[in-house]
């Protein structure tokens, strides 16, 4: 299997503090990878580094063979490969632009004409059960659940091969969590999209990920097949985490 994402010796230092220290892992194409850690573990910094929003102090990251940097050129090249789904969907939509305008903008960046962009938007809305009327609204005029779907649709405008979901279940009640995760599962199955979920929700990680990595204080303390990580963790911290939710 091809590695969609290769992280080698990634280190991110802020002043004297190592937010991420010497992390190496592979995410295989078409798989689902769970990056687990508490607050302060460095998982958000690592995620931003993979996306190209945060520059590495040391090490390297490759997405589909392309080295990751935070230049606009680099981001543009990788925009058709990897897209984020951030935690707060309403804040992920530019407040003073209509949703249709946001999709036209995304379409333009994906190389589509105005009408093609809107067509693709309509198709995506249908596939995600988003009412077409929402396209005329603004971010603050739609519910959180609808915003979540719309944000995923916008990410899909770029036809990415990889989706990175940042705490997809945070702040949601269990049913809404289920809906969100089912959406990601659907994308994975129907379009063979590689999914990375960054989370502290171990139950969700257990149920959908093929491989899991556990971060603690910036270091990768556990890495392996999810089944093995959860049934026989090698690291003490992992064991403590699992016990806390069982």
């Amino acid at each position, binding site marked *: 299997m091809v590695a969609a994402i290769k992280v080698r010796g990634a280190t991110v230092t802020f002043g004297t503090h190592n937010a991420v220290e010497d992390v190496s892992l592979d995410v295989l194409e078409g798989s689902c990878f769970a990056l687990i850690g508490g607050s302060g573990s460095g998982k958000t910094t690592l995620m931003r580094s993979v*996306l*190209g*929003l945060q520059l590495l102090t040391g090490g390297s990251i490759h997405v589909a063979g392309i080295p990751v940097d935070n230049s*606009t050129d680099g*981001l*543009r*090249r990788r*925009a058709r490969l*990897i*897209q*984020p789904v*951030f*935690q*707060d969907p309403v*804040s*992920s*939509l*530019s*407040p*003073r*632009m*209509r949703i249709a*305008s946001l999709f036209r*903008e*995304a379409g333009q*960046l994906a190389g589509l004409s105005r009408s093609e962009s809107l067509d693709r938007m309509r198709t995506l809305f249908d596939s995600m059960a988003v009412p077409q009327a929402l396209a005329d609204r*603004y*971010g603050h005029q739609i519910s959180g659940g609808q915003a979540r779907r719309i*944000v995923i649709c*916008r990410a899909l405008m*770029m036809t990415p091969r990889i989706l990175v979901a940042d705490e997809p279940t945070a702040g949601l009640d269990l049913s809404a969590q289920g809906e969100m995760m089912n959406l990601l599962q659907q994308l994975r199955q129907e379009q063979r999209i590689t999914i990375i979920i960054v989370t502290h929700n171990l139950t969700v990680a257990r149920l959908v990920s093929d491989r899991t990595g556990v971060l603690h204080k910036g270091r990768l303390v556990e890495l392996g097949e999810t089944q093995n990580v959860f049934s026989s963790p090698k690291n003490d911290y992992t064991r403590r985490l699992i016990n806390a939710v069982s």
Partner: protein
Amino acid sequence: MTEIHARKRGRLLRRIMHMPTGRIGLALTAAVLFVALIGPWILPYAPNAIDVPSRLLPPSLSHPLGTDQLGRDILARVAVGLRVAIIISVVAVTLALLVGAVIGTTAAMLGGIADRLAAILFDTISAFPAVVLALAIIALYGAKTSNLIILVALVFVPHFGRIARAQTLVLRNAPFIAAERMLGLSLPIIILRHVVPNTIGPLLIVASMNIPVVITIEAGLSFLGLGVPPPTPSLGTLLRDGYIYLEQSPWPAAMSATALAVLTLSSTLVGEAVRDAVDPRIKTR
């Protein structure tokens, strides 16, 4: 995009009209604008028409506000003075807003050294007392209207710049900015399309509240002889002339003072009404 602006403007106007200060402010402003813009076209006397035999006359039918020491019609001069004050204040504030916002926003988005330099620049400019700065510039470059505008704009650049910078620093870390970066949008376009529209609100409010301040500064400088050069009448110079000839006739001073007061009051009321109208007072969860 324009639709929502129009709708917002409509709502804003309605809210301003709801407040007594807003209604009075708008009414006064309308009156002032009428006199200032239409006045010079319809008034019978030219502002600089000297008519010494008719000097220092009290208000009459032919000279509603009286005449000054050279027989010039005060109403005509006040009308031009109002126009000068309005133009200078609007141009200076707009200039300050544009320059301040561009520097503040760009520096904050770039971060690092650019941001530090912008902060230092703003601190340096605002460290100078406005009057000292005025004296220095006038002494070096002469007392011209354009210098006056540049001077005033300079004094207010840090004001707008700091607000723009603070707003941008907050927005920088917002998820939607990161999302736009991930789509491959370049930094200048992100600033223009996504940052500026979200930071312009407070800037416009501050601009509307700074207009009366600039009017007062301009009048003050003109009063000191550092402002608009003669023969263009400024409310400040009118006030000074009236002050000199106060013993011979109170009318020139009284009329120009009243005009200045009305102008400042009307713009202050409108500025405060705009601020209150945009204030999010409803607490929602």
